[in-house]
């Protein structure tokens, strides 16, 4: 189990690297977001405790790359502040990972379509949550009004659709790795229940 967990940690890191080389799609700038798919698979294949650790690792990596330390004011009133604190993505990932864990019984029975659908929805929820956090924070600093236009809809919904389409492939690949190291993700619940 620990070996497979380490594989998932490496897979989440690699998916983050790959994300950097996929350009935004279409004029709306729809991004492919891969890392949450690894987390969602982890939520199905790992016990709850390890899922939390995986959410912590994924969220920390994401925040380490995206969190912005900004300067407010000039001269004597100048101050540096963290726009959105390190850790919010971890909470978000853990919450959505827990939601995905709720679908374990179906996964145990060999179903996968619902999980792909939920992965798509959850990916869009991540992007939406990021947008809302940014908007609230920037409004609080007095920066900008709330904007929610056609492009924003696309940039929230688009990653979800892409995740939905890619989820079967990602799940299949990760399932193959599980088989390779002799780990059966469908037994995890039974072990937890004991």
């Amino acid at each position, binding site marked *: 189990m620990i070996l497979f967990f380490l594989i998932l940690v490496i897979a989440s890191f690699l998916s983050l690297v790959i994300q*950097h080389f996929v350009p935004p799609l279409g004029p709306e700038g729809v991004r492919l977001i891969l890392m949450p798919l690894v987390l969602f698979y982890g939520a199905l294949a790992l016990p709850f405790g390890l899922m939390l650790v995986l959410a912590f690792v994924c969220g920390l990596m994401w925040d380490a790359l995206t969190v912005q330390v900004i300067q407010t004011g000039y001269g004597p009133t100048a101050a540096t502040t963290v726009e959105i604190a390190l850790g919010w993505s971890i909470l978000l990932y853990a919450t959505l990972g827990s939601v995905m864990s709720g679908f374990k019984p179906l996964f145990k029975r060999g179903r996968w379509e619902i999980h792909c659908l939920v992965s798509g929805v959850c990916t869009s929820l991540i992007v939406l949550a990021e947008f809302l956090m940014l908007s609230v924070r920037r409004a609080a600093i007095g920066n900008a009004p709330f904007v929610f236009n056609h*492009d924003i809809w696309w940039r929230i919904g688009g990653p979800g659709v892409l995740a939905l389409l890619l989820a079967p492939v990602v799940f299949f690949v990760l399932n193959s790795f599980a088989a390779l190291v002799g780990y059966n993700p469908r037994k995890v619940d039974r072990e937890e229940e004991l």
Partner: protein
Amino acid sequence: MRRFNILALVVFLVAVGGLFALGPGATQKIQSGFLGIIAPWLKSGSNVERRITAIRKGLKTLDELEAENKELLVHNKELQAVNQTLRDLETENNRLRRALHYRELAAFQLVPARVIARDASTWWNTIKIDRGFADGIESDMPVVTEDGLVGKTTTVARNASTVLLISDENCKVACGIEGSLEQGIVSGERTSSGSMPIISMRFLSKTANLQPGQKVLTSGVGGVYPSGIFVGGVKEFRVRELDGYATIVPAVDLTGLEDVFVVLGKK
């Protein structure tokens, strides 16, 4: 087993709470550390991407040549291939010469850097470059190309840095309009993305009456950006309730950045 889950949840929440309590300094240290870890991977990926792009570009040009010079290609295939290779070299040479020329003329000390990755997120507009504090780079240093302003450095690792692009809402630059006393703040928009950079100038006077094509230059106010760096051209001006607002066409093509310069200070 349920007890273990509760324990795991408690440990998890304590760890996340610890992260929430971190100040800007500690946050930047974590960011710098992780950037140092991921940077070699991004550099390797960037090199592979460049090779693939080079091959694809070569094939595409060959296709175009084939359409235009079908007869000639049949008879001079070998010659065409050599010619194509030389053309690629010439383009690269011209680009580098232009860049070096800029470096010689600039009044600032510049560190050339290569873009290794673009932002993978939806709401932030940043790029990663292959130079860091080992080259004297610190956070809040302006980044330019021979065409104008790109943005400023934020997170700096040993051999890599993150650059916040001017198309990001958080990148605010005090600017003026060439040939007038008008001043304002240039920043990106939240709807701006890597493929569609949008920048605007706010807090202009309502009587500014800017004309399309007027040049926007940094004013030097604020201390981060030296004055006189070309930011872009005015596209449209409109009067709002409290101020004048102009949309700006960036001087630099932010979608196709390959090589940039970090401004360390005056020579």
